[in-house]
């Protein structure tokens, strides 16, 4: 018997890869496949991280790798099943994936082809191999991150968006990833690539949901390439079950004068690790990162962010906020890297938390590594209770305690919520937050 559960999932995955390779015959010589094979070797070498790994100190993946999952399981999901998720209809390009598989019958693309091309990754492999050769896995690091390596080796599908230069895409694009865990434990590894041309503009949201009570595992990687003067709004909204494991990396690469705005909102989910890595590989760039998380019960939510200032005169700004209840745990790790060339960098980071229960824990770690001398950098983290004075004030006006508490929590979250500029999406999130805080 193998008493190291660690190896079970790993050896299964390695074996799966070999099997699929045998089935591929000729295709296994493609450039893309060479990357996948290289990524698999890295995964083999790295293995799943343990808490001894500095980046995984507070996020123990042991229970994840003990589970048995069916990867890319088929699903007989219907439009009626989706109604259970109570998602409001969002106008725009909406693409559905269930257990990692694209669902054309549920999806719609409204933007004209002149504004952007949206294809699935599976399709892009066939139709635009050169584009993939140029961009795929060129940004998200699979040398040191086991989960990114795993995704790179295995990802079958996802979305490739290509916005030509000078186009401001009007309609937002919403990618909905659903784990259908009604019958069995399911796993998926979506892979997205967004290429935004010079002076182009786009708004993209990724939403993650679960159907059913079985365990699910989502290991997602998104690479975003933002060309000169382009502007990207990116939202990651997580509303998964307590049985859901989610590991995700969003890797952003910005060129001169580009702007990137992001908001990562975690409403629910059992075990979550989000990596948001931004390389400011241009001058006069702006990167804005907002985050919001509300763990309760035994939920675990970990946000790791990394901003790499490589060139002078860029600006990064970060605000993450959390409200923790019950026995939940939260992690915030914000790394700011200012390289020697990145003079006149302006970097600001803040993480604020309200801990409502003595059994909840928040671990925050700002990490600043600055190699340039003329920079403005500031960071701060706070973790405290709800303001008792404010609570008494509201109660003295006649508002019952629970309601006053949720009013204050909502107010705390409000500035981040307002950063979501897709109105219908924001309103939906507002309703969900209000419902969760009112519990």
């Amino acid at each position, binding site marked *: 018997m193998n008493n190291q559960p660690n190896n079970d999932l790993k050896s299964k995955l390695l074996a799966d890869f070999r099997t699929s390779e045998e089935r591929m015959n000729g295709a296994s010589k493609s450039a893309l496949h060479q990357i996948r094979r290289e990524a698999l070797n890295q995964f083999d070498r790295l293995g799943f991280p343990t808490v001894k790994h500095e980046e995984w100190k507070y996020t123990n993946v042991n229970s994840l790798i003990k589970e048995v999952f069916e990867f890319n399981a088929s699903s007989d999901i219907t439009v009626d099943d989706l109604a259970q998720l109570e998602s409001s209809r969002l106008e725009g390009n909406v693409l559905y994936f269930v257990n990692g598989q694209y669902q054309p019958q549920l999806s719609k693309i409204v933007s004209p082809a002149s504004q952007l091309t949206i294809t699935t990754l599976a399709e892009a492999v066939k139709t635009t191999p050169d584009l993939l050769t140029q961009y795929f896995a060129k940004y998200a690091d699979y040398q040191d991150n086991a989960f990114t390596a795993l995704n790179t080796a295995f990802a079958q599908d996802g979305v490739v968006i290509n916005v030509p230069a000078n186009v401001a895409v009007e309609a937002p694009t919403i990618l909905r990833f659903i784990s259908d865990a009604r019958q069995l434990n399911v796993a998926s590894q979506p892979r997205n690539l967004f290429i935004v041309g010079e002076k182009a503009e786009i708004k993209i949201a990724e939403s993650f949901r679960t159907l059913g009570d079985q365990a699910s595992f989502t290991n997602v990687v998104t690479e975003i390439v933002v060309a000169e003067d382009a502007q990207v709004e990116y939202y990651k909204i997580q509303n998964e079950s307590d049985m859901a494991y989610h590991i995700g990396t969003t890797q952003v690469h910005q060129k001169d004068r580009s702007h990137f705005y992001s908001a990562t909102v975690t409403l629910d989910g059992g075990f979550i690790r989000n990596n948001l890595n931004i390389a400011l590989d241009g001058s006069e760039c702006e990167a804005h990162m907002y985050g919001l998380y509300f763990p309760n019960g035994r939920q675990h939510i970990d946000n790791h962010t990394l901003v790499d200032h490589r060139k002078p005169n860029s600006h990064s700004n970060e605000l993450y906020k959390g409200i923790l209840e019950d026995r939940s745990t939260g992690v915030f790790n914000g790394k700011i890297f200012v390289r020697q060339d990145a003079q006149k960098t302006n970097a600001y980071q803040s993480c604020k938390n309200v801990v409502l229960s003595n059994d909840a824990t928040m671990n925050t770690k700002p990490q600043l590594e600055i190699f340039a001398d003329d920079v403005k950098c500031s960071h701060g983290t706070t973790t405290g209770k709800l*303001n*008792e*004075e*404010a609570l*008494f*004030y*509201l*109660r*003295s*006006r*006649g*508002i*019952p*305690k629970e*309601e*006053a508490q949720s*009013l*204050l929590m*909502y*107010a*705390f979250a*409000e*500035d981040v919520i307002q950063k979501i500029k897709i109105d219908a999406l924001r309103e939906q999130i507002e309703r969900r937050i209000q419902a969760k805080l009112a519990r």
Partner: protein
Amino acid sequence: MLTISNLQASIGSKEILKGINLEVKAGEVHAIMGPNGSGKSTLASVLAGREDYDVTDGSVLFEGKDLLDLAPEERAAEGIFLAFQYPVEIPGVSTTNFLKTAMNEIRKYRGLEPLDAVQFLKLMKEKMKLVNIDQSLLSRSLNEGFSGGEKKRNEIFQMAMLEPKLAILDETDSGLDIDALRIVAEGVNQLRSPERSTIVVTHYQRLLDYIVPDYVHVLYKGRIVKSGPKELAFELEEKGYDWIKAEVETV
């Protein structure tokens, strides 16, 4: 309306109120004066239900109900209002934003239908005029960046909206210029009626020129050491508190 008997309160091991007795009848205005640190704000807070203080003895009856048994929000619904000496800043919560919730919670408690948005706005307009407060101030985060006068006017605005049976004003006059003072007094006087009462905590006699009290009490070291008609306020203004302190020490 309000009967305070032998009220004693402490925080930690520190005794602050050492046996307060006070009877406020419907329609009356009582002024409470006294040097800093006497326990005036503590008394106001205990009446409003602040949980930091331990009531160690005594009782408070409000219209026959045991007030000390009620949560702060229940006291508000019963008709008690405290205008805070130091109103707290609440980022992200505006006056309009919480006041509608507050009013409708109080109405629910009293078995009344909630106000709809139109009724609420109409009432707001009316009361805004009364205390000369701007809509924009009411839509901003509560007290964030407000001037001292704006904070106090906002307290009186809320009082005007909630129409309490017993209003407790904790040094609402401090830091106000004469115009603001007049507006605050106006707000209080508008509410005066045979059914409503007011407790005015103040340092200065000048507010009492505008809100004329029926009784004046001097609180010192956690006790009411002297009570009298409104003329007592003039005497205090003239002679200060030293003679009262001396009187207390000799006893």
